[in-house]
């Protein structure tokens, strides 16, 4: 456990001595709940349509696929036409594109960012490395199957899929969202323990709260 996270005794300005436990005091330790959709069917459909039409991707390039996302911002492919744009903070993003091999160290950061996104959130895995380890199938450092650790809505195959494939994938994702079948967040919340067990099996020094709000 890192030095700054250990429990420590602190004396306040008025001499009162008390204990500070960083993991309990600095982080909210609530667990995620399953969020049911809106009451009315029609309202949920409207929201799903809006979510489909305005996909905000988190700017977090994990592997070699990130370079494939850049052309989408250029005039040739222009993802903005489909209501897709990139947001710097996970708070405001609702799509997390895992673009390539995911080392254990990056997985830890990916989990933290994923958990900081708000409920209807989707994960798209790019390339064969997220599917089955790809050419790093025998690597000691990369995970082999993404959906063991994060609820993945869509895989776009290819080593690395070209921007056209990405656009096709996003359109496919839109269909899923509009159909209401992209409930990865609820799935993550439902079997949270299973996901967390898998993650901890691979990430040994887990110096964060279980769910990073």
């Amino acid at each position, binding site marked *: 456990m890192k030095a700054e996270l250990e429990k420590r005794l602190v004396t306040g300005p008025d001499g009162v001595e008390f204990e500070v436990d960083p993991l309990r005091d600095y982080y909210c330790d609530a667990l*995620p709940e399953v*969020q049911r*959709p*809106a009451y009315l069917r029609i309202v949920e459909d*409207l*929201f799903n349509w*809006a*979510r489909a*039409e*305005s996909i*905000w991707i988190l*700017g977090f390039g994990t592997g070699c696929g990130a370079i494939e996302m850049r052309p989408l911002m*250029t*005039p040739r492919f*222009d993802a*903005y*036409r489909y*209501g897709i*744009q*990139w*947001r*710097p*903070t996970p*708070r*405001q993003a*609702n799509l997390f594109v895992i673009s390539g091999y995911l080392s254990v160290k990056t997985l830890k950061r990916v989990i933290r960012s994923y958990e900081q996104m*708000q*409920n*209807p959130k989707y994960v798209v895995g790019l390339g064969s490395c997220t599917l089955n380890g790809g050419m790093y199938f025998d690597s000691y450092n990369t995970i082999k199957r993404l959906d063991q650790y994060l609820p993945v809505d869509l895989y776009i195959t290819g080593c690395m899929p070209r921007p056209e494939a990405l656009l096709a994938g996003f359109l496919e994702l839109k269909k899923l969202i509009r159909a209401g079948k992209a409930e990865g967040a609820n799935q993550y919340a439902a079997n949270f323990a299973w996901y967390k067990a898998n993650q901890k099996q691979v990430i040994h020094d887990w110096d964060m709260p279980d769910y990073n*709000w």
Partner: protein
Amino acid sequence: MSFDWMRIPWSLVTLFIVFNYGLLLNALIAKIAARVGRRHGIPLWQNYVDLIKNYGQRTTISHGVHFYLGPVFRLTGGIGLLLFVPTLYGSAYFANLSFAGDLILALYFVFFGTLGMALGAGESGHPYAALGVSRGLSQVTAAELPFALAVFAVALQYQTLSVTEIVAAQQGGIHHWTLFTNPLAVAAAMLSFLGSMMRPPFDLVLAPQEIPIGPPTEYHSSYLALLQTNRAIFPIAKVVIYMNLFFGGATNWPVFFLKVFLITMVSVVVGVVSPRFRVEQSIRWFLIWAVPIGILAILWV
């Protein structure tokens, strides 16, 4: 001034019109900027979709009471600014709630939203938020100076602080506009307009490439929706003030739409092609270029 209750529904109508116009105008401007980069650009209704999506988000987090109230202050600032200034000159319906206060109220009410938002961002505990606010405040103080000078010059010229009277003085043909009767003041005001519209070269505070989007870093889903609503209303309200003071106000809605579009295009045209200033460079730029023109304006009147 007796308070006739009819003003409220009419001002809500103004609010609705301006809100929709704001969303469409922002989308249009985004498309123009895209077309400059030879990109197709977002569809015009995209802002609506983003708004609905953000309102539709199921979970939110809250860092504390004032974090929760930040966007409320911001939106109240935007709506208030719009309603305290008469949108259409001469029409009994669209003079909004301008009876309450005059130009000074509008000038200082701009800071109400900024202050509330700054406090909310501060409470999020994110260092980028505080850093963004510090940069924003530094830039705004320098940007406000030429605008204050221009407003004072206009007040001196027309010997009044009431917006309605200023617009009244500019009616009757294009040559009565302050643009022509007091060009220096308008020049200073427009330079300061560039600074307050958060577009390059002065968009360091909210630029995604800088520290992630400054103050609203920790805001998301319904908070962000409120901020988006404000981003539709607040720029229009500010432009309305510029229109009323310097460009002869609007007597009917089409003229209003046209003038607001053209004024906004000034900052868009400059913004699309220019790089980004650091904060001290923008402060120096304002103090070296915009303020002397402002001083000339108040001396010349």
